[in-house]
Every structure is written in structure tokens, then in C-alpha cells.
């Protein structure tokens, strides 16, 4: 039984992969069977991911070496094979990708009603994205990180180009693909520099060697490449231009999945800066870079969002500004972590880290909910711009309630999960420097303002004749929205329950580099 639990991370990667490839073969027979097959497999994958999360929280790291019983071969102290190393942080992030891909598959049963063309390929790509995301979260090998990063990028590019009514999805997919390819190549350059120096690709092994030989010039170059490429992929400010196109032009379930894919590369950024470099880099400088990056991302994101006309581009810019909160949270944590001596971590540093990490999951949930409601509106009215929508509240009550829940969560109103994580970030950022919290609160107010405007123009307003009796969205789309709305409320009402069980171990696992290295050697 123990040996089976060790194999769970590999199962979480292979199950959606094999099933995704089988979907191409099964799809020819009947749509119903294929839909049920896809959603059940992704549901099982989500259960496996949750099981791994609780397994890791209960008794620490899971390390699984592919093809050998223990991590290093006998009488040899260097890991030779690829090792899947799952700590609380990796398992936490995989939760986001597992949840969104499952709900996206549920939502897509009826979302693509007009052109049923190529749905086999769509579901195959969706499952491969789930497998790539889980692989990215669980692998402990640098080159493997690059391979899974590339899998998620190309499958996401394929899904972005799926909605081929007008020309814009192709241009959005092309821009997204260029950005992903270039950032993945820069990541590979960084891996090359690391491999050239230490002849080791395992993150724990490289961290160990880097501690022995000190932090050389090439390591700084590699760190620069890693941070630049992963921040570019995560949609931080200097390179955020591809996000409005990539989120705005795609079908709603895919925008939801894309949000978690960007969060994966944010996780990659934290993994590299904490587990790979950890204490042998002067974290205060890197911490302040991440904090400033977060502030800029927040502010520019919300500024651009206010002037948007179409629903999905507006939400895309809000997604950028929310990423700023995560960067701010973890950046403040890094600064506090490194300024104090290695032993004692100041309380607010730990708290800031928890706030940032908790916000990652919260953001995935309520941003997904908002994209699904926008998709429901577009599904029913086929209209994207805000001006000629109106008074949908009477026609689509369920979607209206879901939208209100999502909008309140993103604006950080008390009973919802957005507030739970933002309040932690405000408190800890305030201790470091009150200016940070001031900006964060201002951005929250602006977010609330822009969502009130959206709510007013989409759901209230004068009665429009052409949307007479369009009725509610089909049940499968309602189920997906209900799932996310209930999670938003649940996490909002019991934040400390969730923080204690899931987020605190994730923050501790991220900080404690020795534990990560210990898992290997």
C-alpha cells in the first residue's frame, strides 16, 4: 500500500495523458460517451491530486524516482534519474490546475453547441493540459520543468486558436505562442548554464552543489534568465501584453484554465527562487524586485481594466492586476525572510507568504467563476461589448447571482475568499512599509468600481426586447458555476480553517530549502 501512495504523483500525470489520447480514438463512436469519459477521468485526476495534497500534509514530502526504488543508485550519492518531488507547495498548486480543467470539461459539454466540429481534439488538448500542469507542479527536475512548461504552452495555444469564427483567435494564439516559446528557450538557457557548471539537473542536487561552491557569476546569469522567463510567462507587467488577447479571445472555459497555467509559472518562479537558490542568494534585493514588480502589475492592470469595453478583456486585465497581489505577498515574505537572520523568520514575513499563496488559489477560483459567467452571457446573447448588453438579471437569475459572488470576491468584500487572503497581505505589507498597503487598497477600490460598472451595464439597465425569453444556461454550465461559487463562499466563511490545513504547510515547505534537499540525498 505504501508503495502505491508513492506512485500517486505519476498516476496524476499519466491518467489524463493516456485518457486524453484515448479520447481521440473513442470520440468517433458517440458524443455522450466521450463527454462522460472526459469529465470522469478529470474528476478522478482531481481526486488523486486532493489525495496527494492531504498525504503530503500528513507525512511530509513524497519523492518518487521513475524506474528505481530509491532516489540515488547504490553506492552513489548523486541522483541520476528523474525524481518527482511533491512538497506541500507543489501539491497546493496542482489543486488549481486540477480543479479548473475538471470544471472546464464539465462546462464545455454544452458551451460549443453551434459547431460540434473537432470536439475530440478539444477534449484531448484539455486533458493533456491537465497532465502537463500536474507534471509541472510535481517534478523535481529542471529540464523536466522545461518540458512540462512547453506542454502546457502548446496545448494552451492550440486551445486558444480553437474558436475559429473570426481571425482574432489566431493572432492571439500566435502572440501567446511566440511569448511562450521565447520564454521557454530562455529558461532552457538557464538550465544549460546550471547543468554546465554542476552536471546535475535535480533541483535539490543543484541547490546542494551551489551551497558548496558558492554563488558564482554564472549562477546570477542563470537566475536572471529564470526570473525573466517565468515572470514573462506569469504575465507580470513588463511582458503582460499577451494576456488580454490570450484571455479575451478564447472560449470562457479555456480562459479559466489559462489563469491557472499562468499561476503555474508563478509557482515555477517561487520554486526556482526559494528551493533552487534559497539562502545563497541575497534575497532582499530579489524580494524588493518582486515587490516592485507586484505593485506595478497591480496598478497598471487595474488602470487598463477600467477603460475596457468588452467583458472578457476587462476581466483579463483584472487577472493581471490580481497577479500583482500574489507577487506582492510573496515578495514581502522574501524580503522579511532574508532581512532577519536565517534562523528566525519574522512573523509578518511568514504571514505575507501565506497571504500570497492563499491568494493564488482564491484568485483561480473567483476569476474562473467570473470567466464562466461572462461565457454564459456570451453563450446566450452572442454579444461581447458592454454597451449593447442589458437587463439580463430577469432572464438569467443564476448567472447574475454567480457574477455578484465573483465580483464581490475579486473586490475583496468581507464574506468572500478574496477578502480572506487580501486582508493577510494588507496586514503583513503594512508592517514592512505602509505605502504598499495603501496601493493595494486603492487597487481594490478601483477593482470594485469597475465591476460595479460591469454589473450595472450587463445585468441591470432598461429592458431590451431582443433578449426576451432567452432563459437560463444549460445545467452542465450551471453545475460548473455552482461549484466555483460554493468554493468562493466556503473559503470566505472559514478562511482560517483552509489556511491552517493547506496554506501554512505550503508556505513552510516553500521556505524550508533544507527539507527539499533532504528529500533527495
Amino acid at each position, binding site marked *: 500500500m505504501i508503495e502505491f501512495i508513492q506512485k500517486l504523483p*505519476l498516476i496524476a500525470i*499519466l491518467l489524463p*495523458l*493516456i485518457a486524453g*489520447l*484515448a479520447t*481521440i*480514438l473513442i470520440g468517433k463512436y458517440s458524443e455522450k460517451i466521450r463527454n462522460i469519459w472526459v469529465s470522469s477521468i478529470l474528476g478522478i485526476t482531481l481526486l488523486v491530486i486532493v489525495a496527494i495534497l492531504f498525504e503530503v500534509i500528513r507525512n511530509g514530502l513524497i519523492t518518487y524516482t521513475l524506474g528505481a526504488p530509491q532516489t540515488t543508485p547504490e553506492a552513489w550519492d548523486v541522483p541520476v534519474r528523474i525524481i518527482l518531488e511533491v512538497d506541500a507547495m507543489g501539491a497546493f498548486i496542482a489543486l488549481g490546475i486540477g480543479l479548473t480543467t475538471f470544471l472546464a470539461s464539465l462546462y464545455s459539454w454544452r458551451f460549443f453547441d453551434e459547431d460540434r466540429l473537432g470536439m475530440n481534439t478539444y477534449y484531448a488538448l484539455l486533458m493533456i493540459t491537465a497532465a502537463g500542469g500536474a507534471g509541472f507542479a510535481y517534478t523535481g527536475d529542471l529540464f523536466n520543468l522545461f518540458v512540462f512548461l512547453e506542454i502546457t504552452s502548446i496545448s494552451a495555444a492550440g486551445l486558444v486558436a480553437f474558436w475559429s469564427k473570426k481571425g482574432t483567435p489566431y493572432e492571439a494564439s500566435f502572440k501567446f505562442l511566440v511569448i511562450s516559446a521565447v520564454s521557454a528557450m530562455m529558461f532552457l538557457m538557464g538550465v544549460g548554464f546550471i547543468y554546465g557548471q554542476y552536471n546535475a539537473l535535480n533541483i535539490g542536487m543543484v541547490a546542494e552543489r551551489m551551497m558548496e561552491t558558492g554563488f558564482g557569476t554564472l549562477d546570477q546569469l542563470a537566475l536572471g534568465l529564470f526570473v525573466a522567463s517565468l515572470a514573462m510567462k506569469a504575465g507580470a507587467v513588463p511582458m503582460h501584453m499577451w494576456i488580454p488577447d490570450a484571455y479575451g479571445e478564447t472560449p470562457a472555459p479555456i480562459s479559466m484554465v489559462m489563469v491557472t497555467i499562468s499561476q503555474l509559472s508563478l509557482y515555477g518562479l517561487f520554486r526556482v527562487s526559494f528551493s533552487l537558490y534559497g539562502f545563497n542568494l541575497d534575497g532582499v534585493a530579489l524580494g524588493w524586485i518582486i515587490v516592485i514588480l507586484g505593485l506595478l502589475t497591480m496598478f497598471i492592470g487595474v488602470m487598463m481594466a477600467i477603460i475596457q469595453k468588452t467583458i472578457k478583456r476587462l476581466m483579463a486585465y483584472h487577472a493581471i492586476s490580481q497577479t500583482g497581489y500574489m507577487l506582492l505577498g510573496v515578495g514581502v515574505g522574501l524580503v522579511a525572510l532574508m532581512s532577519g537572520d536565517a534562523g528566525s523568520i519574522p512573523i509578518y514575513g511568514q504571514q505575507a507568504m501565506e497571504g500570497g499563496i492563499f491568494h493564488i488559489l482564491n484568485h483561480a477560483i473567483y476569476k474562473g467563476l467570473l470567466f464562466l459567467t461572462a461565457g454564459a452571457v456570451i453563450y446566450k446573447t452572442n454579444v461581447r461589448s458592454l454597451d449593447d448588453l442589458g437587463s439580463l438579471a430577469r432572464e438569467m437569475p443564476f448567472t447574475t447571482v454567480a457574477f455578484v459572488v465573483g465580483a464581490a470576491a475579486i473586490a475583496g468584500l468581507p464574506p468572500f475568499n478574496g477578502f480572506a487572503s487580501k486582508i493577510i497581505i494588507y496586514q503583513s505589507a503594512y508592517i514592512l512599509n505602509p505605502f504598499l498597503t495603501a496601493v493595494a487598497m486603492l487597487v481594490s477600490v478601483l477593482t470594485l468600481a469597475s465591476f460595479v460598472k460591469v454589473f450595472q451595464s450587463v445585468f441591470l439597465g432598461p429592458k431590451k426586447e431582443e433578449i426576451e425569453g432567452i432563459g437560463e444556461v444549460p445545467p452542465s454550465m450551471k453545475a460548473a458555476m455552482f461549484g466555483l461559487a460554493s468554493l468562493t463562499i466556503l473559503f470566505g466563511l472559514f478562511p482560517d480553517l483552509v489556511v491552517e490545513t493547506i496554506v501554512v504547510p505550503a508556505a513552510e515547505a516553500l521556505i524550508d530549502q533544507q527539507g527539499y534537499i533532504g528529500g533527495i540525498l
Partner: protein
Amino acid sequence: MKGLSRIVESIASLVFIPILVFGLYIMVHGHLTPGGGFQGGAIVGSAIAMIFVAYGTIEANKHFKLTSLLSIMAGAAVVYLLLKEVFSPYIKDVMIGTPFMGRIPEGINIGHIASGTIFLPLNVLVGLIVLSGFGIVVVLFNQLGGNDQ
């Protein structure tokens, strides 16, 4: 595209088989000589592209249909995954060390085809994936333009 002249067609049909055999040779000898699934698949993929250039789209489409190539690719990938991840721990441990494809003389040797435990089938499956992938891309890109559409 329109096919080329009669001469090119006949030469293409003559040369197709040797390229196919050479590609399969590279695939099958992946564990002995430099090469393997990806390189062998690329060679056979180029042979398919040659057929499309020589015979033109309509003629070549009779032989290489999109749906069959897609199912070959998906089927080969599923079998590769099952063989490599699910069955290989059992098969490989049994074969390693036994004369049946599992033991070779240490150091530099001539290279026995019956070695490399399950590498031979794995290389062939990877070659199939790459081969049908190339075929699909060639089929799709061939339908874009061309005057004899």
C-alpha cells in the same frame, strides 16, 4: 498541389521503398547505432512528403487519409504509454540479465540486435508517432492552396 511529371512520379515510387526501409532500419537499430525512434520517424516522414510532392495532393490523398493517420498516432502513443509506464517494470526486470534480449558483453562489442530489453518496441512506437505526425502535417498543409483543388 498538382503532381510533377511522369518521370518524377516513377522515380518517387522507386525510391520510396528504400527510404522506408532505411527509416525502419534506423528505428529498429536505435539501441545499437546512433539513431532511434525520432530520427527514423523523421526519415519516413520525409518519404511521405516526397510522395505528396511527386504525385500531387489528390493522388496522394488516396493513400494517406487524415483520420487513419490520427488514429495511428493516438494508438501508437497509448501503446507506448502502457508499455513504458505500466508494464515495463515487470517485463524489464524479467528480461534484464537473461539471454533473451537482456544480456550483452561488457565494454565495446559488435552489437547484438537481440538486446536492449524493451527498447526495440519502444523505438518503433516512437517512430510510428513521429511518422504519422509528419504525415498529418503534410496532409493538412497540402490542402491549403494549389490549383487542382
